[in-house]
């Protein structure tokens, strides 16, 4: 494929000294209001997910207990009362047909969502950085072969493979780990392409030549001299993968190949909600808005981080 997408960020990330640069980035980030709002919401959501058992205990509910008495059996198991059965006991109402507490289920859904998103990120970074480094540093043949692989990985309909894989792996394999592996395995192309671009530009720097002349092995140059220079850009880019991973997990769970019941996940809740959108809109809104809020907050923060780190946008036009 013709090189159409220009490398994000481009050369020049580690130009100035780290402390001054870090301060500058922080200052810019602090003045970016949407990014800060995103950060605050992100932190709140992550805390809520971490302390999910505590919060559910304060509400006095758990994710699995059925509350059949709260349902209207004449109407097919729709929760009694307004807004899907919102009450002092059930802050966000209960699930239709089972009467399980929605607040607790949404909280535990956040846990799955964030765990899978971060775990996937680790897989993506390991794969993407390794392949990008090899492509950028490994000479012409390696670059050509790996470059094609990267192009393919970027344009391929990964979810199709993921569905097939997830459907056939035995149920005994821990599902969240499997999701991390599968989503990560099919979505590392962007990280690899960016790493490759960074490596190609850093490779020609004087300090790298100096290291080579002083007899450092290629492996040492790649890992100790080039990688640290490339990492800031790569990590910033990676932040934008978090919301994408959350959507992938939700999508796979929506299709029925994600985490298994009774573990709750937003995608799975949405998939059951397809039959309840008329009778119990609250059941659509709780997981739907949770997912939207999380994705939006993560995206705003990641975008802000990237803008703050972008050398092109610096006040004196340093590149």
């Amino acid at each position, binding site marked *: *494929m*013709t090189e*159409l*997408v220009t490398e994000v960020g481009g050369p020049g990330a580690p130009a100035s000294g780290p402390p001054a640069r870090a301060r500058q980035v922080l200052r810019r980030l602090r003045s970016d209001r949407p990014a800060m709002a995103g950060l605050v919401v992100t932190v709140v959501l992550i805390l809520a997910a971490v302390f999910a058992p505590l919060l559910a205990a304060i509400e006095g509910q758990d994710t699995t207990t059925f509350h059949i008495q709260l349902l209207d059996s004449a109407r097919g198991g729709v929760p009694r009362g307004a807004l899907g059965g919102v009450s002092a006991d059930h802050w966000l109402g209960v699930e239709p047909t089972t009467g399980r507490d929605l607040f607790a289920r949404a909280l535990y859904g956040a846990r799955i969502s964030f765990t899978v998103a971060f775990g996937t990120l680790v897989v993506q970074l390991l794969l993407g950085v390794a392949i990008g480094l090899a492509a950028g540093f490994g000479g012409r043949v390696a670059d050509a072969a790996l470059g*094609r692989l990267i192009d*393919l990985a*970027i*344009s*391929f*309909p*990964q*979810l*199709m*493979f993921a*569905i*097939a*894989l*997830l*459907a*056939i*792996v*035995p149920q005994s394999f821990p599902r969240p780990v499997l999701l991390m592996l599968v989503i990560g395995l099919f979505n590392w192309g962007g990280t690899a392409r960016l790493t490759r671009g960074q490596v190609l530009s850093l490779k020609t720097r004087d300090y790298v030549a100096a290291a080579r002349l002083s007899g450092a092995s290629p492996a040492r140059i790649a890992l100790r001299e080039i990688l640290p220079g490339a990492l800031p850009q790569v990590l910033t880019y990676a932040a934008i993968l978090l*919301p994408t991973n959350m*959507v992938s997990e*939700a*999508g796979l769970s*929506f*299709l*029925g*190949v994600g985490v298994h019941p009774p573990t709750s996940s937003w*995608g799975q809740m*949405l*998939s059951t*909600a*397809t039959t309840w*959108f*008329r009778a119990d*809109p609250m059941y*659509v809104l709780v997981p*739907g808005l949770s*997912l*939207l809020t999380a*994705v*939006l907050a993560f*995206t*705003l923060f990641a975008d802000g981080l990237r803008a703050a780190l972008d050398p092109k946008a610096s006040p004196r036009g340093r590149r």
Partner: protein
Amino acid sequence: MILYLVRRLGSLLVLLVVMTAVVYGIFYAIPADPAILVCGKGCDGAQLAVVHHKLGLDQPITAQYWHFLEGLVVGRDYSSGPDVTHCAAPCLGYSFQTDLPVLSLIAQRLPVSLSLTAGALVLWTVTGVSLGLVSALREKRLTDRLITVFVLGGLGTPVFVSGLLLLMVFCGWLQWLDFPVYVPLTEDPAGWARNLILPWLTLTILQSAIFTRLTRTGMLETLSEDHIRTFRAYGLPERRVIGRHALRGALTPLISINAVEFGVVLVNAMLTETLFGLPGIGQLIVQSSNNVDLPVVAGLTLTAGLAVVLANTAADLLYATVDRRVVLA
């Protein structure tokens, strides 16, 4: 140009072989036995062996894979007992579940998926380009900000959430539309369109957000270029500067974006089909994956991969014809 084409098609071929090999490898490594699914409950050892033989599962994986490739290129014969069925090239085999040829299964579902994506493609290109254009021309004003909010929201909303919200509003509260049921275009064009409104909108929200953003950046970039300044300096009417010259520069990248995004569209169409229960390709792959229907899954991944790679190749060529600065390498 011709050399480039030959090389592209060559790598395409290699790619497809690798892809099928991966699919076969994955499925062969799994413990589930498709023969048990085909044979049904209460199937004894002897019957199972017959089914195994009929499906070719008693052969080593390499032989099975070879026959699959053979079927693709020259067609193959299936013998089950006395009668022999010939499956002409390109033969994707027969479904373990329904015994129907995979190719016809795909062909059966294709109109649904095509109706969904083609209709939505028109919608999102039109809305995306016009919103992006307006946004760029009104940069930093209220309209631009509103459109930016739409883009952020659209990009962050997965199709299964936006689709559900649309269902809730238009089917639930307003009751303007019924829950979509697929009606073939040839039977009832009006019903076809009415039932596809919500699925189309669902896909359009996400994709047009992508297009709006790209058109806006492309337009702003082009407008700041020297040749546009020159046109303006010559006193060309603004409408002509934008309509004839700036728009062309801004829209060229969209060709390749549509191709690169093709895989994304495929996946989102799949999710949309599942949400609305449309009997398309997406539904087929979810069902056959759950049933370990190997020939169908292999056939579908192969077809999808082929479509993605072809779309990319076509876009590269088209791009090179529209934009002379691109050098094919």
